[in-house]
């Protein structure tokens, strides 16, 4: 299943290294909690104004808003970088790269480590469809078909991938000679494998 010709890391060694998705999720959660706390404090201060609520609003509430907004802005900016150009991401063993049903926004090429491709069945059972290693790529199907992810991808070992956004990938897909045929051949193979393993 190796696709050496499509290893994005080799073509672009100076990729932008972004925080791992789990770090992004934690930062976003922190920002959400801070902003919710700030909104509740603001409501309290506006409708029940005392020395206590005013100091709470001016010191804690405004602090939460400034920190929360900066964290969220940081996430939004890295999201823009993530979707434009090629970025590098690291995952811990067992960490999910994306889940079945997620919207597709990136295509990934493995630099080091292994992933397992899992299909979540309607009864909750997880079926292993494939494992992939360095040089292989995944996640292209949702981008090409503009559909949700059809499988969950999880890091089997420490994983480093490079990711490319939808716009860049679809441009390459449309213009690079032979790429479309190669990707479609692999997609057909994978679809056949998946049908066999899930039937």
């Amino acid at each position, binding site marked *: 299943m190796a696709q050496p010709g499509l290893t994005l890391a080799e073509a672009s060694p100076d990729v932008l290294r972004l925080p791992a998705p789990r770090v992004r999720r934690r930062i976003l959660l922190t920002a959400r909690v801070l902003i919710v706390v*700030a909104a509740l404090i603001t*409501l309290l201060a*506006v409708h029940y104004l005392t*020395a206590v609520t*005013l100091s709470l609003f001016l010191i804690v509430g405004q602090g939460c808003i400034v920190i929360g*907004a900066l964290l969220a802005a940081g996430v939004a900016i890295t999201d823009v970088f993530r979707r434009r150009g090629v970025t590098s991401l690291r995952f811990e063993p067992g960490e999910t790269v994306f889940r079945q049903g997620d*919207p597709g926004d990136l295509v990934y090429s493995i630099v080091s480590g292994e992933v397992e491709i899992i299909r979540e069945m309607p009864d909750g059972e997880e079926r292993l469809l494939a494992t992939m290693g360095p040089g292989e790529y995944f996640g292209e199907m949702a981008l090409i078909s503009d559909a949700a992810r059809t499988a969950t991808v999880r890091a089997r070992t420490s994983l480093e991938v490079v990711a490319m956004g939808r716009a860049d990938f679809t441009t390459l897909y449309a213009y690079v000679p032979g790429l479309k045929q190669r990707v479609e051949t692999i997609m057909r193979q994978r679809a056949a494998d998946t049908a066999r393993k899930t039937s």
Partner: protein
Amino acid sequence: MSGITDEIAQRMLEQPFPRSGDFAELGAVVTTALAIAVLVLVIGGALLGERRLSPTAASALGVLGLCVLPVFMMLFGAYTTVEGSKSVEFCHSCHSAMNLYVSDMEDPASASLAAVHYKQRWITQHECYRCHADYGVWGSADAKLRGFAHLYHWLIASKTALGEEQIHTYRRYRNQICLDCHAGGADFLTSGRGVHLMIARNLVERDPDTGAEVTSCMTCHAPAHPSLESWRSRG
């Protein structure tokens, strides 16, 4: 024909007319709407999850709910609360320290300057702030900065904040604040056989050492408020 009886009309005149429709009230409505919108977007976005939204829509909602609206909420909230902090109710919320001053002011039997002003409704709103903030932009900013110092006193529970120690003004009370309302008034000019005009220079000219006028209004019109000692002796 309007259904207002003499009794109702008398009762209406016995109390201050309710004020409504100022900017602080509008600020409270806008801040509330923004806070609710932020809560709906943030909690709704978290519950809905990024999975059900396209990445672009999720990002746009995130930026709106976590960056844009909260900043506006902060600005409107700051305006509303700072405006609200001019009210007597707010000053009174620092209960231990301010109880003496507000209670005396609202006491119809009190003859202190603050109580007389309050009783006669010479100042119709923000009574504490009106007499304790200098006029002009810097006066207002100065009062608000001093307000932070008051919050600090409250936070550390200082003796003055707890009402255990006599509070003093930061500097001698300036005649300018009194004159802003009284100068030019018929009663002010003619009362006491025109005494104010007789000592006009002393009321206006500033002493270079103290920065305050040579003769303070309080020289003749004290006390503005009862002292802590006299209040305690009143029981």
